[in-house]
């Protein structure tokens, strides 16, 4: 058993983690290159805003997929990837917020404050981001030890609120064609539903 685990760990360390790092970081230089080479269409700021938001939501939902996958497959090594994907989501959410603040509004705080307080979909997006901040700050092993498992888990269940707020933010950001937000929201809903059903299921073990 312990031999199995260490082999899995080695595989993770050698292949899966570098692949995840690449997946998380590579879109960034690609987007920056596209921006600089004027490959983002007529309204590059709008495009960049959308794409960074998509990546944030993708990683957030991916982090939500870890637990169900672990339960179904029994692969314990997955658990470490959950925090990594959560941090990736935070990284892209921060990028998304930066594009909004710097490129879209160029620090026009008056308009930004008005936008955040008056427009529900911006409020939701900001909520999704703000809730991720404490999670990102306590994502270290030391934090888990300090807080203790149950408290840490409780704090990190904020991610459920964040993902729901993020999905609604996407739904309301769209003018009329809801096909994309429905796909994201559907996957997120399925992953949340899995947790509810798993908890409700009577188990012998």
């Amino acid at each position, binding site marked *: 058993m312990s031999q199995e685990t260490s082999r899995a760990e080695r595989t993770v360390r050698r292949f899966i983690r570098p692949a995840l790092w690449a997946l998380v970081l590579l879109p960034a230089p690609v987007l920056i290159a596209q921006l600089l080479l004027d490959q983002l269409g007529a309204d590059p700021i709008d495009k960049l805003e959308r794409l960074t938001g998509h990546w944030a939501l993708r990683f957030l939902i991916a982090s939500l997929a870890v637990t169900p996958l672990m339960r179904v497959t029994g692969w314990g090594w997955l658990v470490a990837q959950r925090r990594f994907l959560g941090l990736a989501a935070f990284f892209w959410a921060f990028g998304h917020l930066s594009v909004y603040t710097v490129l879209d509004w*160029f620090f026009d705080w008056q308009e930004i404050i008005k936008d955040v307080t008056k427009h529900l979909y911006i409020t939701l997006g900001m909520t999704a981001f703000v809730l991720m901040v404490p999670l990102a700050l306590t994502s270290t092993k030391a934090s888990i030890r300090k807080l203790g498992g149950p408290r840490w888990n409780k704090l990190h269940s904020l991610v459920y609120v964040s993902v729901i707020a993020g999905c609604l933010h996407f739904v309301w950001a769209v003018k009329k064609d809801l096909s994309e937000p429905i796909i994201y929201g559907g996957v997120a809903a399925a992953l949340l539903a899995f947790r509810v059903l798993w908890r409700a299921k009577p188990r012998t073990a």
Partner: protein
Amino acid sequence: MLIRRPDDIPSSEITPESIYQNRRQFMGTAGALALGSALSPTALEALSRTGRGAQDDKVTPEEDATTYNNFYEFGTGKEDPAENAKAFKSTPWTVTVEGLVKNPNKTWDLNDLLAKLTLYDRTYRMRCVEGWSMVIPWRGVQLRDVLNRLEPLPSAKFVQFTTLYDPRRMPGQKYPVLQWPYKEGLRLDEAMHPLTLLATGMYGKSQLPNQNGAPLRLVVPWKYGFKGIKSIVKIRFVDSLPYTTWSDAIPSEYGFYANVNPQVDHPRWSQAKERRIGEFLRRNTLMFNGYAEQVGSLYAGMDLRKNY
């Protein structure tokens, strides 16, 4: 408040007719001289008086105006129409006229409908309800000239337009994103306003690109872009407020009038500012998109917060 001082008029106002009466002189080099409309005497005057002007309302690059489109009949992405409308054929084209006119239920060949009408080149600002804007040199006829030819009855108070419905040619219509076919409308006095165009071309060319609404589209420069219905096949004169697609789809967000108004926000976003395509910082949105002096009187006494 609605009326702006004359010296506030920015550049891309209507180009004086005299220039266009002589347009054949320079049609040969129309491409380059499309710029002429932005550098018209009015614009230069405005520039010398206020320091604003042509530079302030530079014509949007043709590439941007033809690759960044909202034309859901060819897909909901901004780049979709340019891609999906490539094979669209807009000749021959007919326009059916219905309702309160002298000869109802008559189908016109587009060429006959527009025959001998004066063609104008007009550079207008275009403000999308989503918060971005462009400056586009249109070519077309005044809608009023077409309507006068059709001779509406005195009972006609509104005019409604309908886009072609043909999902085989317009693949976006296979999806129920909006209720097809797209319909838009104007009050008759809005339709008769000399600024209102039926465009048949742009950027000095006599044909519209398919993604911009070939072969015939409405241009109402003081209203949000979605009022500018594309690929029109039907004109109907009615006596009461007609059905229009967006105001029916989401009535709380899109009204029948849809006049550009920085003081009345979209429920989900501010309309106070806009990003001009190609610029970095947002600029202030102007009342009636900067055409308040010409069209403000159409709405005298109306509550524009209610009639958004």
